[in-house]
């Protein structure tokens, strides 16, 4: 050891500032609960917070009350930590599945690599049969058409446009390190706004987002896509 001082920093400093969140997570035993349904109970929609507004809008359109179709959301931030989606869904359903007649998940696979499906099987619940929300909003043929035409397409929805600063810009750390823009978005050409609603303010915001990312702006009004049918089916009206 030399007498010269070292900087305080590195891993020890970091660990001092934060608990190890994952260790607690990993310690959780895998749930083996197979839950039963309540045939007289309401329908549960357990969804990513990123599509909460859309589900509420669809529920209203269908004239279904929030007693008949209960919406519960998990934080949209799990998007960036897909490893936590299946355990969080599992935990929620283990505790609450028995109250509901049917459960529909407002998720695609969302990068869980099949883990979510295993959980759903145990709890007799279904999800949208898509990879992610961009695909179910656009519907599969249209999504494929857009990506086949331009692989460098980066998709945003009403939700992501609204929360672009917090979820995309700050989520990528571009607020403090704008020089990382190229590392993140260097492979992209277009920002494709898959709009749920016709909202000029959001269109302006989306255009600004495209400019900040250095991408072309492309607009598609796609509405609720396959989410609409999934919610209608769940409501059984």
């Amino acid at each position, binding site marked *: *050891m*030399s007498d*010269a*001082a*070292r*900087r*305080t*920093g*590195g*891993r*020890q*400093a*970091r*660990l001092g500032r*934060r608990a*190890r*969140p*994952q*260790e607690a*997570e990993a310690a959780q035993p895998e749930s083996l609960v197979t839950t039963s349904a309540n045939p007289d109970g309401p329908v549960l929609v357990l969804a990513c917070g990123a599509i909460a507004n859309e589900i509420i809008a669809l529920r209203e359109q269908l004239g279904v009350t929030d007693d008949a179709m209960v919406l519960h959301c998990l934080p949209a931030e799990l998007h*960036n*930590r*897909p*490893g936590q989606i299946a355990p969080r869904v599992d935990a929620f359903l283990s505790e609450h599945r028995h109250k509901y007649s049917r459960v529909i998940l407002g998720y*695609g*696979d969302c*990068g*869980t*690599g*099949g883990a979510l499906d295993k959980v759903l099987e145990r709890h007799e619940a279904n999800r949208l049969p898509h*990879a*992610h929300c961009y695909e179910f909003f656009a519907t599969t043929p249209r999504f494929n058409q857009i*990506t086949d035409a331009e*692989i*460098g397409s980066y998709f945003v929805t009403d939700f992501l446009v609204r929360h672009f600063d917090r979820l995309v810009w700050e989520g*990528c*750390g571009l607020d*403090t*390190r704008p020089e*990382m823009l190229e*590392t*993140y978005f260097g*492979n*992209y050409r277009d920002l494709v706004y898959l709009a749920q609603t016709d909202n000029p303010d959001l269109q302006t915001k989306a255009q600004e987002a495209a400019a900040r990312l250095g991408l072309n702006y492309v607009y598609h009004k796609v509405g609720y896509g396959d989410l609409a049918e999934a919610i209608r089916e769940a409501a059984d009206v």
Partner: protein
Amino acid sequence: MSDGEEIILRDLSDADLVEQMKDDLYDGMAAEVHEGTQILLERGWDANDVLSEALVEGMRIVGIDFRDGILFVPEVLQCAGAMKGGMELLRPILAASDSKASLGTYVIGTVKGDIHDIGKNLVGMMLEGAGFEVIDLGINNPVDNYLAAIDKHNPAIMGMSALLTTTMPYMGVVIEELEKRGILKNLPVMVGGAPLNQEFADAIGATSYGRDAAVSAELAKALVGRNR
């Protein structure tokens, strides 16, 4: 991140300097890692030792904390940038010296339909650190790109990356094609990407699954019979 306290790296002993470099790499401080590398070289360190003891070891710790949710993608990118700061100095020395023969060529690329490349680039950097000559095919690679690269570079190992559920199966398509052409029996194929797991890698017939960059570099060394 440290508060930017001014310290004099040159005043540190070798052991402390290596520890400081690992911390600085963890904190994404590229200039400091660059300087530390320079100092160790001036003190007569072998470039390979600087690489493995300070940079690769530092990045290994970063990988663990990323996996455990302590570091996030933006921070990992900073760390990778800091490692590059040291690599710039070491690369020409390593290339010129024959102190350590290359472990062979490693062809790596993200599969068709997928343009995520942060993880792949990190793996490429760690493989380079481990002594492979890395040929990076970039993103969105159809099977023909892999075949052409195999023809051209005669790699010791090939690696594929996928981050999307929709593009993972394409790895299986490539492996099937390699099998059909009789290439697979002589060419280990590694796969990786966040949504993958060992089970999937086994199902598509990959030789091995790399959970993170450090593990992948170790696995790759083992595959060419150079695990130390």
